[in-house]
């Protein structure tokens, strides 16, 4: 049944989308690697090939190592909290009860609103004098002095993580709910006939069967958290004392505040590698899992 017209039409239809991706996604990525090998400072017209000098400078700069650490800390802690909280909420909403459909829709809201709005919302709640959070803390007698959530180095990153967890947990819930719906109800019936406790059912049935989708969720969230920009940039711009400066924010400041496009691109290359590394690792774990699964079944 395959004829030439199908093949010709097929390739022709792919051209527009692939052309757009090539020009606006792949070409700029190649451009990033090219720029990272150059000294390019826009307003002065400086543009020269300097080899790996940008990277040499990078590894000698404490601010770079700080931002790498902040990025990893933010990503690991956010994703851990989001997946734990998201799994709990998904288990709760996987049951059927009146109003559950409505609740599944409402829970999506934080995910759908602009991140900039999330940042301003939480910034307002975190305000030392006028913020609702400190009001509640004082009213309940937990604190006497107003806490400066976003102005205190040890607190700011954690305050931002809470806002990020609020914003992105719905995504985890939605994907895990879809995963839970794929588990056949027979398995649960069999478990309850065998007298398994709710915890045993969760530990030995739900969790293993949910594992593939759980891995995908962790991958998606991890990649997203590693590139976090909007929330932190709007809330703290990387402060106080660079304690919330992620690689994205560091790169952005180098690119568009100091206009050092070569050095900024070198930070971009590091981010690209980091994301690629995480993706490959997850892919490898996924493959290993499915191989084990096949072996266990045969």
């Amino acid at each position: 049944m395959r004829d030439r017209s199908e093949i010709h039409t097929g390739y022709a239809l792919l051209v527009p989308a692939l052309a757009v991706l090539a020009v606006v996604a792949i070409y700029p990525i190649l451009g990033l690697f090219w720029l990272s090998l150059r000294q390019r400072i826009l307003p002065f017209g400086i543009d020269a090939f300097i080899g790996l000098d940008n990277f040499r400078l990078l590894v000698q700069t404490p601010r770079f190592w700080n931002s790498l650490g902040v990025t990893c800390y933010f990503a690991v802690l956010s994703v851990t909290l989001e997946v734990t909280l998201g799994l709990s909420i998904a288990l709760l909403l996987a049951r059927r009860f009146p109003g559950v459909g409505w609740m599944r829709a409402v829970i999506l809201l934080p995910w759908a609103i602009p991140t900039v709005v999330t940042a301003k919302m939480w910034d307002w709640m975190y305000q030392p004098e006028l913020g609702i959070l400190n009001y509640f803390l004082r009213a309940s007698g937990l604190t006497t002095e107003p806490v400066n959530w976003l102005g205190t180095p040890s607190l700011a990153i954690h305050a931002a993580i809470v806002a990020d967890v609020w914003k992105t947990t719905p995504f985890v819930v939605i994907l895990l709910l879809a995963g839970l719906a794929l588990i056949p109800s027979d398995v649960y019936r069999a478990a309850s006939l065998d007298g398994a406790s709710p915890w045993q059912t969760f530990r030995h049935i739900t969790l293993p069967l949910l594992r593939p989708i759980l891995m995908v969720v962790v991958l998606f969230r991890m990649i997203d958290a590693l590139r976090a920009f909007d929330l932190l940039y709007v809330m703290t711009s990387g402060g106080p004392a660079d304690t919330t400066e992620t690689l994205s924010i560091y790169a952005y400041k180098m690119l568009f505040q100091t206009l050092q496009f070569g050095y900024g691109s070198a930070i971009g290359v590091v981010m690209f590698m980091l994301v690629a590394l995480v993706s490959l690792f997850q892919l490898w774990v996924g493959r290993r899992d499915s191989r084990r699964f096949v072996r266990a079944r045969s």
Partner: protein
Amino acid sequence: MKSARLPSVGAVLILAVVLAWTLFPILWQALTSVKPDTDLVQLPPLLPLHPTLDHYEALFQQHPFSRVLLNSFAVAVFTTLAALTLGMLAAFPLARLPIRGKTLVLGLVLGCSMFPAIVTVGPLFIIIRALGLRDTWWALLISHTTFALPLTIWVLTNFLRELPEDLYRAARVDGCSPWQAFVRILLPLCRPGLTAAGILAFLFSWTEFLYAFTFTATEASRTVPVAIALFPGLHEIRWGEIAAASIVVTLPVLALVLLFHRHIVSGLTAGAVKG
């Protein structure tokens, strides 16, 4: 799945906490937006005792907010249309036609959706500046479409694959060319898939910040998220107006989420659960 029954008291309590955690920040922003300035410089009162629309009025009269809203809306609509057109054209061969390298193309598309936007924003800025497209809708339309495209292709390819293959075969046997079979038979059946992909593309563009922040300079092309981030405050931060702007930009999102919740979920899970 257990049969429908009322949840226990404990479960209801936990659900209430989840609901409060989800909705309180949005609710608080809504309350803030209708409090007069005199009530914003002190706390309590918690509830707006003298509710007012002053902040909303100021938004549209003292700031060029209607222009900013128009920019956001136009860019999001055009991005959606462009991503759906390009995505649909690519999804058809990827789902139905016997071409080589499908896995490679889908992998490449997925890869494009994974790298951070900060990676391309520098080189893209240089290109956009060279083309004289800075501070125009074009700069945003091009970058948003490219970023929305991978997800659109995945959602639509998955959707087309789930339509019965016989539909396409029958049209071909009846003498349609591949293109005719696609346009006349498959396309009309794709509405749910197009809705899901379209809403995701719209939401993406409507909420996008990094490109919009970098490629715009004035209200000629500035979008709502950028305007909120850059809200002018001479001596103090105008929390009331920021809250009002936040509510205005959230309303369309609220409508889409409540009306098309199932489409959004099916779109988001299309790539994740099956791929």
